[in-house]
C-alpha cells in the first residue's frame, strides 16, 4: 500500500511538470491556432537562465527562479512581437514550421550564451521529508505538487472569472469575431506567449534538479505534453491538464508494476488505441462538419 501511495505522490510531482508544459502548449494553440513545437526548448532556455543566475551570479535559488521568470516574460514578448505577429498570412503547417525555426534558434543560442557543459540546478528546498501513509514525501516534492495544482487552478480561475480570461476565451473561439467585438487580440497573443514561456521555465526549473541541465532537458517532457494534449483533447483548456496527470500516473504505475523497460511504450500504444476509439480525446467535442 505504501508503495502505491509513493508511486501516486511521485506521479503527482511529474504530473505537475507535464501539466505546466501542457498548459503552455494549449494556451498558445488556443489563441494563435498553432502548435508550438518550441515549447520544450523555450522552457529549457528559461531553465538555463535560472541555472546561470544561480551558478555563475550566485543569486539565491528562489530569487534566481523569479528573475528567470521575468526574463521568460521578456523572451515571450519578443517572440510574439518580432515573429509571431507577422505570421497572420501563413497557412497552418507553415506556422508550425516557424515554431520549429524558433526552436532551432533557441537550441543554437543556448550553448552560445551559456556554454556547452552540463550544469546542475539544486532543489528549492534542499532537504527534509515527512511521511504520508507510510510513503516518504520531501518538502520539495510537496512544493512542486502544490505549485502544479495551484497554478493550474489559478489559471482556470483567471480564464473563467477575469476580463482577461474572457478575452482569451473569445479569441480562442474565433479570432476574427473577437477582433470585431473590440477584444485586443494582439495583447491576448502577447500574454499567451509570455505565459507559455513562464510555464515552460517553471516546468524546466522543476525537472532540472532530478537530472542535469543540458539542451535535451525538456525533450521527453515535451513529447509527453503533446501526447497529453491529444489524450485530453485540444478543444478545452482543462482536458490536456487531466491528460498530463493521467500520463504521469500511468507511466509510473506501468513502469513499476508491468515493466520498467517497456512501460512507456505500452502507455503510448494504449494512448494510440484510445485515440482510435475516441478521436477527439477525453474531453473533446466532436465538431460537426458541414458540407
Amino acid at each position, binding site marked *: 500500500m505504501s508503495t502505491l501511495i509513493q508511486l501516486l505522490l511521485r506521479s503527482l510531482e511529474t504530473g505537475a511538470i507535464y501539466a505546466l508544459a501542457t498548459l503552455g502548449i494549449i494556451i498558445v494553440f488556443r489563441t494563435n491556432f498553432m502548435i508550438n513545437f518550441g515549447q520544450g526548448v523555450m522552457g529549457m532556455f528559461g531553465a538555463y537562465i535560472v541555472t546561470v543566475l544561480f551558478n555563475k551570479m550566485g543569486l539565491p535559488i528562489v530569487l534566481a527562479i523569479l528573475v528567470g521568470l521575468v526574463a521568460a516574460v521578456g523572451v515571450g514578448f519578443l517572440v510574439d512581437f518580432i515573429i509571431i505577429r507577422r505570421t497572420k498570412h501563413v497557412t497552418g503547417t507553415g506556422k508550425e*514550421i516557424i515554431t*520549429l*525555426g524558433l526552436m532551432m*534558434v533557441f537550441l543554437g543560442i543556448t550553448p552560445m550564451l551559456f556554454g556547452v557543459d552540463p550544469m546542475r540546478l539544486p532543489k528549492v528546498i534542499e532537504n527534509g521529508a515527512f511521511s504520508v501513509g507510510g510513503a516518504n514525501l520531501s518538502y520539495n516534492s510537496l512544493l512542486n505538487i502544490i505549485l502544479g495544482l495551484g497554478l493550474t487552478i489559478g489559471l482556470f480561475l483567471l480564464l473563467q472569472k477575469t476580463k482577461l480570461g474572457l478575452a482569451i476565451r473569445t479569441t480562442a473561439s474565433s479570432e476574427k469575431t473577437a477582433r470585431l467585438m473590440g477584444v485586443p487580440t494582439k495583447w491576448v497573443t502577447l500574454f499567451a506567449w509570455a505565459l507559455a514561456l513562464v510555464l515552460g521555465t517553471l516546468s524546466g526549473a522543476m525537472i532540472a534538479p532530478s537530472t542535469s541541465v543540458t539542451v535535451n532537458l525538456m525533450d521527453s517532457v515535451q513529447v509527453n505534453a503533446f501526447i497529453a494534449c491529444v489524450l485530453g483533447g485540444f478543444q478545452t483548456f482543462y482536458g490536456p491538464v487531466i491528460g498530463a496527470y493521467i500520463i504521469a500516473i500511468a507511466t509510473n504505475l506501468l513502469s513499476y508494476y508491468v515493466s520498467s523497460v517497456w512501460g512507456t511504450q505500452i502507455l503510448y500504444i494504449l494512448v494510440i488505441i484510445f*485515440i482510435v476509439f475516441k478521436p477527439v*480525446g477525453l474531453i473533446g467535442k466532436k465538431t460537426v462538419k458541414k458540407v
Partner: protein
Amino acid sequence: MQKGSTQKSFLKNPYLQYIFFGIIISLLPVLVNAGILKTSWVGIIGGTIIYAIAALGLNLLLGYSGLISLGTAGFMGLGAYISAYLTGDLGLPWEVGILAAIIIPVIFGLLIGLASLRMEGLYLGIVTLCVSEVLRKTFDELEPITGGFSGKGAEYPTLLGNIVLNQKQTYVLLVVALVLLMMLTHNLTNGQLGRALHAMRGSQVAAQAMGVSLLKYRLIAFSLATAYASLAGALYVHFIKFVYPSTWTLPVSLTILAIIVVGGMRSLYGTFLGAVIVYALPDLLLKRIPVIGDINGLSYVFSGVLIIVVILFYPGGVINIFRDIKKLFVKGSKKEGEV
C-alpha cells in the same frame, strides 16, 4: 522551325530533366577529386539527398493528401536498423536488406493508415509521433538487434554480391535512388492516384461522393510515405555507416516537414531545394568562415532564422522564387501569382 519545336519538346520531357538533374548532382565527386570542392561536401550533399528522399514521401502524404505525419524519424530509424541487422549480423545481401527494410515498415504504415481514418489533423500528427517514440524507445531497449545506446554499425553497400562501393560510389547510388524516386513520384502524382489524392485533400466528402475510396487512398498514401522514409533510413545507415537510437527524435521529423514547407509543397525540385536550404546550407556556408564557423550552435541559429525568413516571405515555398525572377524579366507575362 519544325526541328526547333521538336528539340524544345525533347528538352521539356520531365524524365530527361530528372536524369539531367541527377547527372549534375552526381558530378560532385568529380569536382571533389579535382580539388575544387572539399571532401566534406560528399557527406553533406549525400545527407541532403537522404533527407530529400524521405521528404518526397512526406510530400505525397502532406502535400498531396493533406495528411500530416510526425513519425518520419521513427520509420527512417526502423529502416536503418533492419538493413543494418540483416546485412551485418545475418550476412544477407544488401539488396535483401533494403527490400526488407522497406517491406516491414510499410506494414506499420498500413496500420497507421487504417487508424488515420478515425482522426484528423493534429491528432493524427501526434499519434504518428507516438508511434515514432515507441519505435525509438524500442531501438534503445532491443539490444541484441539494435546495439542499444552504443549504436550499430554497417558497411557501404555491396551490389550483386561482389561490387563493393566506396563513399563516392555510394553517393552516386544515392543520386540514382533519388532520380528514380522522383520519376516514380512524378508518375504517381500525375496519374489517377494523384487526382484521387488531390480530391481527398480538397474535401473528403466530395471525394467520397465522386467515388474515391478514402480507405484505399489513405492506405496507399501512408504506405508510400513509410516506404520512402524507411528507404531513406536504409540508405542512411549504409552511407553514414553508423546509427544511434538518439538520432531518430522529433526534430528529424520536423526537419523533414520543414523541407517540404520551405521548398514548396507538391514540387519535386522544391523538395530537393528545401533539403539543400534546411540541411546543407548552414553547414556549407558557415564551416567555411574561419572564426565564426567554430561557434557552437551557430548553424542551428542560421537554419532556424533561414526557415523563419523563408516562410514569412515565401509561404508557398522557395520554388516560387524562380517564377518571381522570371516575372521580373519577362514583363507582361501571365500573372500566375494571382490565385
